[in-house]
């Protein structure tokens, strides 16, 4: 296919617009690259950095295969082996799989949705730096010989102080939490961007199916990550300060960790799978030469899968002693989750069956996916059946199953997508010399490694053992498994060489080489920093776009925003469901601030690791200050009213509308925050009901007057925030109201500190005191962040960013303080109710 030839005036027009847009959107050379906030740059950084971690994790996996290839091997000592397999799993899950899908989402989602960028470019950059620094901390720790050594799910009490007294567990808890902060910030950004920043006219029923997959995945991340973040914080507090959340001798319970971990861990499998299913759903129609079958059924299946995946976390805990009736809920759920997965697989097969498929390299990886994922799914259903799970639990069978699922869900679709989108990223098409042998070596090597691992597992070989004796009948299977691992590694080596060859010698292409039907190809390749010179008005179904004819028209500026204005980075905000443009979004330019903020965050994490807690607190304050500073130049210093966007339409800038991206971002951030709070409530009730050594010896007591004072102060702050909003609406000064909010918050924090100091039993003595302290601490932290909101309000009002119509700052503060007041009332109420709850325990037989 060739691109339509443009006449000289049209070419000149497109070129002029290109130069003007590049001057506004491009990242500077040299060190200025560190200031980049562009989604293409950051997305690529995410993808390449996660691939580097994949290579490191792969080498670690190979080391474990060397150790297990023969019995009684002395290649690694037990401690090194523990660190190597722990880091292999942690790296593949937290530093490769999740960041890879984030990178793919960041790079491709705006392009597929016809937008110029994401809603919060600086947050994207901050997320990347957090990921890089968190991953680096973990990697350096491994090299230094103090890497995590308690397995990738860090079960207590093995990971607690008693059995892991060094900093190995702290490295995991702090490093992984650091990376999860990155994941949460990006999840908020992705949700808001998909709902508010699609191409004009792209109603939700016209959204490419990839958008649905990424939207649901990001929503899942908002709810799945907080339980693990909470678990990590609690375990780190236990290790650092001795509060016994997981210590059964003092009213804690090791199983609480398992619940919090798998509340994250099981949905995480689908958080990895769904974006890759989105990749497949985008590619298969292109190679089948027909639209995707069952678009609406797939949307239902995605929603069902998202919820069912949360409802089956206990299937990782079938052997911990839960009654049969409860196990059956999770066993049945684990089996039925295969149904929505199958809906998607049959939709893909139907698309291929009813189309005119053409064979190309990505299709090889797609068929490998079908084969491997089906096997992984089937062994998953086997493990969902409780009696079988009891036999196979903690054996190599489970390791084989999870590799089939992870590789099927992630690696093979990822490689299909790599070959499909590499021409878009590089502007070159493949040479194809090494691609075929690379594929076959990866496919054969993978199956040789992990198919045999099922068998050695069924023969009774436990997972995570350092070595074996040689009389168990596992020798040959382990040896062949290791040989398969090396075949697969050589395949990946060839693939890397193949990609490098394409980058250097691939034939240059300016346009879509696949005859695709999605918007990401309706731009020059490789994509310019502004993505689209003008924004397409979507009036065709989601899979009927014709990039070959559309791209030149958009390049000439014939869509929306086909011009530049005031040097602004402009894109459009749309109505959530209809896609009608409703605001002009002006994005921030390149800045080093995300880098400095991430460095300050890394400083705080490292100080925690070194047990310099005052320094860590100072680092956290610095991070808060940098966030306040980062907000100082956001928005516009005056009101503009509706501004023309092309096609005879005018819309107001995002600073002057109610439903702007920051508003929605805070709502979704609070959904995530609320999940963390709910997990904390769950943890409190779980310990109360299930943990040994309850009730505590000391009678719990809380000062009622002080507790009521905290709640009253929090509500006073929230009411004052409403007052400041009313004041600005009536063009009067809101400073007095803000002052009242500040005083109320400072008062509440001081009172909470007194309450925590007076908790009985002491937080170090019993989990009851510990949970009460954390509940109160949660409120104090939120009140502290509320103070940052108020400081930012004062600064921005002074700088002229706030007016009756530009009142988003004050509305955000109001929302935050109302959330703090409501959660504060619940937390304080629970702390007050603890003595009564302890009394109820006396009724147990």
């Amino acid at each position, binding site marked *: 296919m060739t691109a339509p030839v443009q006449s000289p005036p049209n070419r000149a027009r497109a070129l002029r617009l290109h130069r003007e847009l590049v001057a506004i959107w491009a990242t500077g050379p040299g060190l200025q690259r560190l200031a980049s906030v562009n989604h293409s740059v950051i997305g690529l950084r995410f993808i390449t950095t996660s691939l580097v971690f994949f290579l490191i994790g792969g080498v670690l996996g190979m080391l474990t295969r060397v150790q297990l290839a023969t019995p009684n091997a002395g290649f690694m000592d037990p401690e090194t082996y523990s660190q190597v397999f722990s880091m292999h799993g942690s790296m593949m899950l937290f530093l490769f799989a999740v960041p890879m899908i984030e990178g793919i989402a960041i790079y491709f989602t705006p392009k597929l949705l016809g937008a110029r960028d994401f809603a919060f470019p600086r947050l994207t950059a901050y997320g990347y730096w957090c990921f890089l620094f968190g991953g680096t901390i973990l990697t350096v720790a491994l090299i230094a010989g103090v890497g995590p050594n308690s397995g990738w799910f860090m079960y207590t009490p093995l990971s607690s102080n008693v059995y892991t007294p060094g900093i190995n567990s702290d490295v995991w808890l702090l490093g992984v939490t650091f990376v999860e902060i990155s994941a949460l910030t990006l999840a908020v950004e992705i949700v808001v961007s998909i*709902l508010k920043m699609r191409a004009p006219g792209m109603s*939700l029923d016209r959204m490419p199916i990839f958008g649905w997959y990424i939207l649901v995945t990001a929503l899942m991340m908002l709810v799945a990550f907080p339980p693990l973040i909470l678990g990590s914080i609690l375990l780190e507090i236990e290790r650092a300060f001795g509060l016994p959340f997981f210590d059964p001798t003092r009213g804690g319970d090791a199983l609480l960790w398992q619940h919090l971990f798998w509340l994250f861990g099981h949905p995480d499998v689908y958080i990895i799978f769904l974006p890759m299913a989105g990749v497949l759903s985008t590619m298969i129609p292109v190679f089948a030469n027909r639209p995707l079958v069952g678009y609406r059924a797939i949307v*239902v299946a995605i*929603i069902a899968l998202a*919820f069912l995946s949360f409802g089956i976390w206990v299937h990782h805990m079938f052997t911990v002693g839960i*009654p049969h009736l*409860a196990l059956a*809920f999770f066993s049945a759920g684990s089996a039925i989750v295969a149904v929505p997965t199958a809906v998607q697989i049959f939709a893909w097969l139907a698309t291929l069956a009813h189309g005119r498929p053409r064979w190309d390299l990505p299709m090889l990886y797609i068929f490998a996916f079908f084969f491997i994922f089906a096997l992984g799914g089937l062994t998953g259903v086997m493990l969902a059946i409780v009696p079988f799970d009891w036999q196979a639990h903690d054996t190599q069978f489970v390791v084989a199953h999870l590799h089939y699922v992870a590789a099927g869900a992630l690696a093979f679709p990822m490689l299909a997508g790599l070959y499909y989108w590499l021409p878009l990223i590089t502007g070159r098409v493949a040479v194809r010399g090494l691609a075929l042998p690379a594929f076959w070596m990866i496919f054969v090597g993978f199956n040789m490694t992990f198919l045999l691992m099922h068998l050695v597992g069924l023969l009774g070989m436990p997972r995570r053992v350092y070595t074996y004796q040689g009389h168990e009948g596992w020798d040959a299977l382990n040896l062949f498994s290791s040989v398969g691992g090396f075949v697969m590694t050589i395949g990946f080596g060839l693939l890397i060489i193949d990609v490098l060859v394409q980058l250097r010698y691939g034939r240059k292409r300016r346009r879509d080489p696949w005859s695709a039907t999605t918007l990401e190809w309706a731009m020059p390749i490789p994509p310019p920093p502004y993505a689209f010179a003008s924004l397409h008005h979507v009036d065709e179904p989601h899979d009927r776009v014709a990039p070959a004819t559309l791209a030149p028209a958009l390049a000439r500026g014939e869509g929306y925003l086909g011009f530049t204005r005031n040097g602004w980075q402009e894109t459009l905000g749309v109505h959530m*469901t209809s896609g009608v443009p409703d605001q002009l979004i002006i994005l921030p330019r390149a800045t080093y601030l995300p880098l400095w903020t991430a460095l300050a965050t890394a400083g705080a994490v490292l100080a925690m690791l070194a047990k310099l807690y005052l320094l860590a607190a100072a680092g956290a304050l610095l991070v808060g200050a940098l966030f306040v500073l980062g907000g100082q130049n956001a928005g516009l210093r005056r009101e503009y009213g509706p501004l023309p966007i092309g096609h005879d339409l005018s819309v107001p800038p995002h600073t002057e509308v109610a439903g702007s991206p920051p508003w929605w971002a805070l709502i979704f951030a609070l959904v995530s925050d609320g999940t963390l709070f709910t997990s904390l409530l769950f943890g409190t009730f779980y310990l109360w009901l299930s943990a040994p050594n309850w009730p505590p010896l000391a009678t719990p007591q809380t000062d009622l007057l002080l507790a009521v004072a905290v709640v009253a102060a929090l509500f006073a702050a929230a009411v004052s925030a409403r007052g400041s909003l009313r004041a600005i609406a009536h063009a009067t000064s809101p400073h007095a109201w803000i002052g009242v909010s500040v005083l109320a918050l400072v008062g509440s924090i001081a009172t909470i500190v007194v309450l925590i100091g007076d908790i009985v039993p002491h937080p170090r003595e019993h989990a009851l005191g510990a949970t009460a302290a954390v509940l109160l601490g949660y409120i104090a932290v939120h009140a502290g962040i509320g103070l940052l909101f108020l400081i930012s309000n004062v600064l921005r009002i002074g700088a002229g960013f706030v007016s009756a119509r530009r009142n988003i700052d004050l509305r955000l503060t109001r929302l935050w303080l109302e959330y703090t007041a409501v959660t504060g009332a619940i937390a304080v109420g629970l702390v007050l109710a603890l003595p009564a709850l302890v009394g109820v325990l006396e009724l*147990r037989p």
Partner: protein
Amino acid sequence: MSARAVPPRQLWLLIAGFGVWCSALVVLYTLHAFGCAFAWPTGALRLGLVATLLIHLAVLGWMCRDQTRRPPDPELGATAAFFRWVIAGSLIAAIVAAVLVLGPPLLLSTCV
């Protein structure tokens, strides 16, 4: 494009069905844990569990009936038709999931 847009609050309905399913799972699991911890009589515990499931199924059934019986608004166009289909589909899927996942386990021994 249609004359009126589907209100964004309808997005919540996309997840409402499985939201109720989640509520059913959480309430059943919690109730079961309480019943076993405080040694409730088997019959009373099972009755409580069954009642909980039936209440959730009734809510799901009402939502499904409400969604499918309401006539489509012609002014809302193709997007509304898409929403109706997906909301109804997810509600039906949630009912099926509730019956298959949460129903049969209630026949098992309660606290063993």
